[in-house]
């Protein structure tokens, strides 16, 4: 267990700025060169309800927030009800004293003091930061620096309010916590940011999306920052337009990506199949949330693994991969965009809300990313669908005196429609050959599975759950390995079969055990137990560690 773990929790209503406070707190911890993991929990509404943000920090690398807080700042009655027991043994509860007095913790006039200021509802999040700075016994000038940087609107009001809270907290709990300095200086980014940066590094030109949680943060990030990064965003009328425009754009050589979630992705499947037939290289970001259907829009789940393996009718090369950390998301997104162009086929970047919307400090080395040039036509007569040994045909973009025909119909090498038996067979074989080249390429060049630690039991997982599993292993002190499947399609059985017959535990966030099904059926991996959670919340590393200890005892 992490010996200098510290967790800060702030909870209140949507509109009270708890998310913002979480981010600011994360950056505050960064001043100590500490590692952080920050997670936001919020329902699907704009004002009111119950939001909270948790930031866990340590001098060691940290891959998850913890549900038990050392310092909890609770802004309303509901937060008390929900979080009063989410405290570590010596944890401190700070609550708004408009709420009736609590047995433990200290009441501070958070809302009543706010009333003096211009935006009493929006300002209260600042109380969390002021409390944090005071409880860590930092100088009030540090608080000033933070407020001036992070809360610039009505900054005088904000400062005044922050001071009042700081003073009260400081008086009541002087030097409650001491934070050791760490050595990490990496930036703190969300998964949405690392994905956006990763695809930019691999040459993305256009990002098309219709808003849908949890893919929207990528749209927002690129809409704000993309121009500098070489990426423009477009929000069309619906997801069908999104996918078809993206395919159209690739026809010109523009690297294109779309972002969506379950229902939106369903609507894109017809275009997905078109991309398979036309051999259009489009990267699809598929962000999972609890389903089926509209489900629970702002929470997290991994219920679409099987669904993502065969979207779009018919047979064509398919790639699905899912990053196991916010850092890996950077490199993997870039790799997938490159693979799309290398193999001229649609590719899915599968992830979850827990990855796109959480943040942690990450070590990104953009110069490790290259922009792979696709096979280009050089000269002579151009045929869009020329048969080659690899199944990959050279690309050529307009304007050109050569005719370039892409098509949704079965076709000959020129791209003209065909209905002839032999031609149909040949093109099926071409696509199947390309699929085989792809598998070969993955085997030889791509890391398809991550292995952390060593020895049995093997904890199998994928996607953002990997982060929590790794943290839980740290917490538990268990000797074991975490096996994270990065690639899910083609399924890296070649790599995994060696685990068959060994002691395995499968951990995933869905109710039917989709990863388990794949591991059982494709690799003969039969776990001694499987651990699943499907309540929309990420695992808590401590609870997961306990379960792990129990099943491995």
């Amino acid at each position, binding site marked *: 267990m992490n010996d200098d773990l510290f967790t800060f929790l702030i909870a209140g209503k949507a509109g009270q700025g708890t998310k913002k406070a979480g981010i600011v707190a994360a*950056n505050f911890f*960064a*001043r100590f060169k500490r590692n952080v993991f920050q997670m936001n929990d919020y329902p699907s509404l704009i004002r009111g309800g119950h939001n909270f943000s948790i930031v866990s920090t340590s001098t060691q690398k940290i891959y998850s927030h913890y549900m038990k807080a050392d310092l909890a700042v609770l802004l309303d009655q509901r937060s008390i009800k929900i979080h009063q027991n989410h405290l570590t043994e010596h944890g401190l509860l700070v609550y708004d004293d408009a709420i009736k007095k609590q047995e433990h913790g200290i009441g501070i006039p958070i809302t009543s003091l706010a009333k003096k200021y211009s935006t009493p509802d929006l300002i209260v999040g600042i109380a969390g930061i002021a409390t944090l700075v005071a409880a860590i016994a930092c100088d009030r000038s540090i608080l000033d620096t933070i407020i001036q940087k992070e809360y610039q609107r009505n900054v005088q009001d904000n400062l005044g309010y922050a001071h009042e809270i700081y003073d009260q907290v400081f008086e009541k709990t002087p030097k409650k916590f001491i934070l050791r300095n760490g050595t*990490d*200086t*990496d*930036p*703190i*980014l969300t998964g949405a940011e690392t994905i956006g*940066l990763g695809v*930019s*590094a691999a*040459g993305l*030109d*256009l990002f*098309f999306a219709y808003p849908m949680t949890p893919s929207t943060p990528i749209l927002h990030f690129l809409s704000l920052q993309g121009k500098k*990064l*070489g990426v*423009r965003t*477009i929000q*069309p*009328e*619906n997801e*069908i*337009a999104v996918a*078809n*425009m*993206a*395919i*159209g*754009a*690739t*026809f*010109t*050589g*523009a690297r*294109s990506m779309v972002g969506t979630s379950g229902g939106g992705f369903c609507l894109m499947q*017809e*275009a997905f199949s*078109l991309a398979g037939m*036309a051999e259009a290289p489009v990267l699809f970001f598929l962000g999972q949330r609890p389903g089926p259907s509209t489900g629970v829009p702002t929470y997290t789940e991994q219920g679409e693994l099987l669904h993502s393996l065969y979207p779009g009718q018919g047979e064509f090369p398919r790639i699905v991969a899912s990053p196991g950390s916010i850092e890996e998301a950077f490199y993997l997104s870039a790799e997938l965009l490159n693979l799309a162009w290398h193999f001229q086929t649609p590719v899915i970047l599968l992830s979850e809300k827990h990855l796109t919307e959480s943040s942690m400090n990450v070590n*990104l080395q*953009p*110069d490790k990313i*290259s*922009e792979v040039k696709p096979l280009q036509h050089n000269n002579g007569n151009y045929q869009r669908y020329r048969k080659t040994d690899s199944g990959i045909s050279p690309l050529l*973009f*307009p*304007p*050109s*005196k050569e*005719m*370039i*025909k*892409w*098509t*949704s*119909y079965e076709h000959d090498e020129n791209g*003209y*429609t065909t209905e002839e038996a032999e031609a149909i067979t040949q093109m099926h074989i071409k696509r199947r050959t390309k699929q085989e080249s792809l598998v070969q390429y993955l085997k030889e060049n791509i890391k398809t599975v991550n292995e952390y630690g060593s020895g049995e039991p093997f904890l199998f997982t994928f996607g953002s759950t990997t982060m929590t599993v790794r943290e839980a292993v740290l917490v538990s002190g268990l000797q074991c390995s975490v096996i994270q499947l990065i690639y899910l399609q083609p399924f890296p059985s070649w790599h995994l079969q060696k685990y068959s017959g060994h002691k395995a535990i499968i951990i995933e966030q869905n109710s039917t055990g989709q990863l388990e099904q794949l591991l059982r059926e494709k690799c003969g991996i039969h776990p001694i137990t499987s651990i699943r959670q499907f309540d929309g919340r990420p695992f808590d590393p401590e609870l997961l560690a306990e379960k792990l200890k129990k099943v491995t005892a």
Partner: protein
Amino acid sequence: MDQDFTTPVENTWCPGCGNFGILNAFRKAIPKLEKQGINPKHLIISAGIGCHGKIFDYVPLSGMYSLHGRSIATVQGIKLGNPNLKVLTFAGDGDAFGEGISHMIFAAKRNADITVIVHNNGTYALTTGQFSPTSQKGFKGPSLPSGNIEEPLNPLSLMLEAGASFVARGYAGRIDHLANLMVEAVLHEGFSYIDVLQPSVVFTNTYKEFNASVEMIEKPAVRLEDAVQLAKRFDKIPIGVFYNVSKPIYHQELYGEWNPVVNRLSHAERIRSIALYLSDHLQE
């Protein structure tokens, strides 16, 4: 490219089909456009799925044979990928006003710089003649043998309402007139819509009616209301340009003069930008 713009693909339209008129008009339009400075290699085409869509294989231009209803999105994507290209799509009435109507309305609304030519034959021809969004009430097709129970949409007034900046109607039986409309539509900067009266000799053999009642429009209406009124005339069937105005163009509003494939940020510049972003977010 062949000067007659033919391809080796066998034509499989029914003899006498109005689609031939559209194909011939387009083959005439290409050299005319070339004279106006539009090199055929910059002219990118698309098509939906249906009898109309086969035109894609019959002209040797580059482009993408899209999905039923989606070519309107496809060509917008192509334009957004490389705004230097001129993009044009052929679509069916089922294509454009059934499956793909959302794309039509938004392409018009945002004044996307594309040209849409609808082969309006009032039926889903290739799927054997079911009623379509522009079928007349009472039209008998195999999915409603007792006759269509819906009023047809009016493609022209609908496009005008949606914000189209160029709206015209042509007739497959007036090839030169139609060729000129195509030229004008492609040259128009912004969303151009041509509704082409296209008899399907098998399902809607309307040559006789059209020959009797088409009437050339002298010049486009200046006011939108008048264009709409003209679109709703049924005593005579006006053909020609109904409306032609200049409006801000989508890709220019979005990009200015920037072009994604021409003005790409180099790999080095991207890496530098990312490094900058990261250093802005470094822990102090």
